[in-house]
């Protein structure tokens, strides 16, 4: 048991997986000598060699497309997209190819690969280094999308993703890389893909979130507990797709009040499905309105601190919405 931050945990887990299985290769921009712009593959080139740690040309569509070919021929490629904002050129390879190869071949072929991408805002990244992309990819049958919020989950989900026979998108919130620390068990374990996790137990309100926002929700919940004695249950979705409805509905049925917090643009965003699911399957258990706290419907957060802050949901905004819902 050691305390680590997110980026260290992902680095160590990836390292151990590469050490244990030489079918695992990483490829992407600057993953070699540079060790990745966020240092996730630091030291990999020296230890595993350039055959397994592949600095690719600046071409995302082929980073994913080539990885698909590798996966079709016995390897377990782990392409890194340097920033989630730059995954868009690979949209076709991910949606039309990776996610459909098993289905279209009637199960004859499979694409075991893990697409890693740092996402999210609050890092002065402006329009093109801050984006949320889970709203797009959660809507793609054949693709699994996971978002760990803690080091413990990061290790378990990454190990599960690498062992998954199908393509998994593994999204790492940039802001959590060094900000979020936690105990990481030394032994090998997997966190099952498709299972949400109650990160804080509570009785009065259910707050569903993931990624950086989950931590804001936990902080807001604590504040509400301390100041008003309200007990909020915080559910970490962890897997965007396939979505674990059961855990969410169970909590809502217990508390009778639900809110969803996400950083992505509000409209047609991930929270819409979660709210819709609760509305459809737990309406009669609700004794309060369904609430969404999310990014505004503007193209992205700006660079200037104050316009970036304007975009990001923060503890205050979340706490205010929580309080209002609790008092309803």
């Amino acid at each position: 048991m050691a305390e680590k931050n997110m980026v260290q945990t992902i680095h160590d887990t990836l390292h151990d997986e590469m050490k244990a299985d030489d079918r695992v290769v990483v490829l992407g921009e600057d993953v070699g000598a540079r060790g990745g712009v966020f240092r996730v593959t630091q030291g990999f080139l020296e230890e595993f060699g350039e055959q397994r740690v592949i600095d690719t040309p600046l071409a995302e569509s082929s980073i994913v497309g080539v990885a698909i070919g590798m996966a079709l021929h016995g390897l377990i490629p782990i392409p890194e997209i340097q920033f989630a904002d730059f995954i868009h050129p690979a949209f076709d390879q991910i949606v039309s190819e990776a996610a459909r190869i098993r289905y279209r071949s009637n199960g004859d072929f499979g694409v075991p690969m893990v697409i890693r991408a740092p996402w999210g805002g609050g890092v002065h990244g402006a329009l093109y280094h801050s984006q949320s992309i889970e709203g797009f990819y959660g809507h793609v049958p054949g693709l699994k999308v996971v978002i760990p919020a803690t080091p413990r989950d990061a290790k378990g989900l990454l190990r599960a993703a690498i062992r998954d026979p199908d393509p998994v998108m593994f999204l790492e919130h940039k802001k959590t890389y060094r900000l979020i620390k936690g105990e990481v068990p030394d032994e090998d374990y997997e966190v099952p893909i498709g299972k949400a996790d109650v990160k804080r137990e509570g009785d009065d309100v259910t707050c569903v979130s993931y990624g950086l926002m989950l931590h804001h929700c936990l902080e807001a919940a604590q504040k509400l507990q301390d100041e008003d004695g309200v007990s909020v249950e915080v559910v970490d979705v962890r897997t965007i797709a396939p979505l674990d409805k059961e855990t969410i509905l169970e909590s809502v049925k217990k508390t009778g009040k639900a809110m969803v917090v996400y950083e992505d643009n509000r409209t047609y965003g991930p929270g819409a499905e979660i709210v819709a699911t609760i509305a459809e399957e737990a309406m009669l258990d609700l004794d309060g309105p369904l609430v969404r706290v999310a990014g505004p419907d503007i193209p992205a957060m700006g660079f200037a601190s104050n316009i970036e802050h304007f975009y990001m949901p923060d503890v205050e905004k979340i706490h205010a919405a929580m309080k209002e819902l609790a008092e309803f």
Partner: protein
Amino acid sequence: MATRVKQAEDRHSSLGLTDDDLLSMYRTMLTARLCDEQQFRLNRQGRAPFVVPVSGHEAAQVGTAWPLVRGKDIYVPYYRDMAVCLVAGFTAKDVFLGLFGKADDPSSGGRQMPAHWGSRRLGIITGSSPIATQIPHASGIAYAMKYRGEDSVVASWFGDGATSEGDWHEALNFAGIHKLPTVFVCENNKYAISVPLSKQCAVEELSVRAEGYGFPGATVDGNDVLASYEAMKEAVERARSGAGPTLIETNCYRFYPHTSDDDDRTYRSREEVEEARKNDPILLFGNYLKSVGITDDAKLEGVREELKAEVDRAVDEAWNAPDPEPESATRHVFAEGSGEGGPGGSSSPGDDEATSSKASGPLG
């Protein structure tokens, strides 16, 4: 592109091809042609809603697919490549099972449109409709072959239209950088549906682009099966020896409309099509076989009748095969246990079904 009837001198022995090789190449080309004629007949009869023709591409396809080693090398074809798949091991019945969207369609069990080939058993990578997406896959497979220390080769096929896509550029660039064991084959029939080559690029020969990726390119007469074979044989040997990729452009012509949904009279004159048919690759190859005394008109007629009967039988068997179960539509979104291609699985023909990646360790 015009090709005259070959002279009587032997062009095949020097290529290591026996008379039997030539005859079976001819049979494969003719089988593709007969399947084509049949599928259009079925389309007119309302028994096949969608048809993708191959006619005119038989020499380019058989010539470039032939040098690959079945059971070892990998084929990454596009929808036009019926003859490539016949070389790789598809049967006429397989073709019609796909045409009718039957449960036993080896490519997709009736899920995909006809001509979306694939078979792990035969080393034919499953294909989709989006143009050029398969080419990066070929580069990735080639990388894995090299990484795994195999001496196998992967070839991908695509039309002239595909060369305009970003994926085409990115795939060739990646293969060039790593000197991968792969061959890129462009079946240049001068049109992307209705868009003529002059509106697709500003060059005479697409093969010149190979230089920009650091490997050789060649343009050959795609109506000449031996010329196509020769260029591919060299390229495959080059790839297998570790010398890297080659881009081969085979000039050919599509005799039918783009698909059964197309009307090519809106963009091609009948004269142009008639002129092209004079270089019918099957006609030319038949003439060669006769000119070198391997066969004669009577024998060729016999072959045609024999193959025609086979194709007719294939149509009947496929037509009477079972449809997929409606509920089967929910299957295979994700793997159903370790029986399906997962980590450790490989596109290599003969590889047993995917093992779970839990069993980690050395390659193989």
